[in-house]
């Protein structure tokens, strides 16, 4: 459990690494470099072929209707100042909203090329950037949305995520990997980051001597060929984290297939070699490394930790009773607390999850006004800290229990108090063919139609915990492979069709890749199919079963029968 409760420096933003002069200088130089590259492109000095890899290295994509800028939110943590910076970009350079992704990034979909350097300059002023959000590099490292507050936390993963961020940003060996490379880290043994579906996933446990060690998963991934990763080492001392992941990536860099886009990910290499052989090579590499050079000494970790602001959590006797009273007085609030909060290790505090999943809205989108509101509410109730989750929601982490009701009322004013976390309308959805140039089909309208069927709050609670992911193509940004119900858009001669997967599960305990239910169907039939699946489950479920339990007990066949028998 994290017990560093006192903020050593109250001027530091809580929950994240605060930049020093070198960090600011580094970003300034990178922006100037990109500004000059854009100028050379506009003047015609650089062709599009020459320019494309440069813009991608700076998070700029060309999508269906416009340029898109993807901005990194390292380990998902924003300060209120950063969020206001994003709101500013959405208002003055985009069309009044941003889209939070499952990679703990935010995307702006209506960007003008010549304005990108000014946007990046503005973002740099709030210590943000778009580096490592594209290209074959180590991408933005994701982490547990309850980091630093979860009761079961062994160490704060954000410190290690920051160390890996700094190491990977400047590492010359890892700028041109065979493919993009994704790392997730949690400081608990409970998996809240989908660790087994990352190139490298890291969980934390206590060893026999009660010392923290990392359990390292490797070779997981979604996309065209989904794989559950394998544990390559379950007792890695934190001091060797950098050396060990560098050894993993070196072996991958050496053997990864660069000549086939679909086979270049580490998951294919691990699968082909087998985890034992891969581990052997990694251990061999690790044994040759100068471990002293890579060692994360206590001093170094403390130095990084010292750049993180910490919330000053004081005791508030009676806070829990006040919350209980508010819950009793207001049923709507009670429902939201039941669904949208997570326990905090400090008994007078609680974490509030703000669902960006209001029925009728695009999952993961937040308007300029909502971003400002969240920033203000974070300042008032959560030490100015905002977390973005890998399921496209937002967390205000350290809320005093007796102030939760006031926070909820504030959220409600901005349509941010939807009480559906983990329920059927909390759908994860990629931008799909409404924006994305890689898409085969639209995903947002399908997600919206499914959500609309189950808008009734009591029905949602009756259905209970379930997750649905809707993807516009096999790249699986919305994780359809590992959702209880996954919907995948496919193209059939220019027409949109949707394939349904059942039985996926994202987290270590019970992690599974879903099974295809049957032939792809048109959008309205896919929505109807989901409805049938849900009502069938409600009929068939036994006491205390969730959707996934009923599916596991019955298997695919009866669900398939119910969808295709009358289709």
């Amino acid at each position: 459990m994290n017990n560093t409760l006192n903020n050593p420096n109250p001027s530091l933003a809580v929950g994240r690494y605060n930049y020093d002069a070198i960090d600011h200088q580094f970003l300034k130089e990178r922006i100037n470099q990109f500004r000059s590259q854009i100028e050379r492109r506009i003047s015609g000095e650089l062709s599009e072929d020459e320019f494309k890899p440069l813009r991608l290295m700076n998070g700029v994509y060309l999508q269906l209707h416009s340029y898109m800028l993807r901005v990194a939110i390292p380990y998902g943590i924003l300060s209120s100042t950063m969020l206001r910076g994003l709101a500013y970009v959405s208002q003055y350079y985009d069309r009044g909203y941003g889209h939070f992704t499952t990679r703990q990034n935010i995307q702006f979909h209506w960007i003008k090329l010549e304005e990108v350097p000014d946007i990046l300059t503005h973002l740099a002023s709030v210590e943000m950037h778009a580096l490592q959000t594209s290209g074959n590099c180590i991408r933005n490292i994701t982490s547990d949305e309850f980091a630093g507050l979860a009761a079961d936390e062994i160490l704060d993963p954000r410190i290690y995520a920051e160390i890996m961020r700094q190491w990977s940003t400047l590492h010359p060996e890892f700028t041109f990997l065979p493919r993009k490379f994704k790392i997730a880290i949690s400081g608990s043994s409970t998996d809240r980051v989908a660790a087994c579906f990352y190139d490298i996933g890291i969980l934390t446990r206590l060893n026999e001597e009660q010392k923290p060690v990392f359990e390292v998963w490797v070779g997981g991934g979604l996309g065209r060929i989904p794989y559950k990763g394998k544990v390559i080492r379950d007792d890695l001392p934190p001091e060797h984290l950098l050396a060990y992941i560098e050894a993993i990536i070196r072996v991958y860099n050496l053997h990864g297939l660069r000549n086939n886009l679909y086979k270049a990910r580490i998951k294919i290499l691990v699968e082909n070699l087998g985890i034992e052989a891969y581990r052997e090579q990694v251990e061999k590499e690790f044994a040759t490394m100068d471990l002293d050079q890579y060692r994360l000494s206590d001093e170094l970790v403390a130095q990084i930790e010292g750049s993180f602001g910490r919330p000053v959590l004081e005791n508030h006797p009676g806070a829990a009773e006040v919350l209980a009273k508010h819950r009793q007085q207001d049923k709507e609030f009670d429902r939201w607390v039941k669904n949208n909060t997570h326990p905090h290790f400090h008994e007078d505090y609680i974490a509030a999850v703000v669902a960006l999943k209001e029925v009728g809205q695009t999952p993961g989108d937040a308007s300029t006004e909502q971003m400002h509101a969240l920033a203000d509410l974070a300042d008032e109730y959560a030490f100015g800290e905002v977390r973005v989750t890998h399921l496209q929601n937002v967390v205000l982490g350290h809320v005093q229990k007796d102030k939760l009701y006031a926070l909820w009322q504030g959220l409600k004013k901005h349509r941010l108090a939807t009480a559906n976390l983990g329920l059927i309308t909390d759908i994860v959805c990629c931008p799909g063919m409404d924006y994305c140039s890689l898409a085969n089909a639209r995903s947002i309208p399908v997600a919206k139609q499914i959500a609309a069927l189950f808008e009734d709050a009591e029905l949602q609670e009756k259905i209970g915990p379930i997750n649905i992911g809707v993807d516009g193509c096999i790249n699986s940004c919305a994780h359809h492979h590992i959702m209880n119900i996954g919907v995948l858009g496919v193209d059939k001669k220019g027409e949109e069709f949707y394939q349904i997967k059942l039985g996926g599960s994202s987290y270590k305990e019970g992690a599974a890749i879903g099974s295809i239910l049957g032939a792809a169907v048109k959008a309205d039939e896919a929505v109807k199919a989901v409805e049938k699946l849900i009502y069938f489950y409600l009929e068939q479920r036994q006491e205390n079963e969730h959707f996934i339990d009923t599916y596991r007990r019955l298997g695919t066949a009866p669900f398939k029968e119910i969808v295709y028998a009358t289709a």
Partner: protein
Amino acid sequence: MISTDQNTQKETLFALTANRFADGRVVWLTAQGYWSLLLEEAQIFSSKGDVETAQQHAQKDVLSQHILDPYAVELNSNLIPQTTREKVRAFGPSTHPEFNPRSVQETMPNE
């Protein structure tokens, strides 16, 4: 000569599309030679050969940083794109009807 689909014998028409260099917006080549945000203003080609010739000519607009990646889009007899992807490109994201290019009138950047 008007192209026909061998199986259906339906008329296939074409327009030439691209993304505008400055802001990535979807544009269509007009008969006057400029690029419009509106498909309705596009020059309609009735043969694959003609649209391919126009595509070659459009390379000058690529080289002058006006547009990116011009390509032909098949239209049906109502002058609507055949594929959903091209319909979405022509009419804007279905989730934001207010972003349909017919609602959002913008001037060409740098012009």
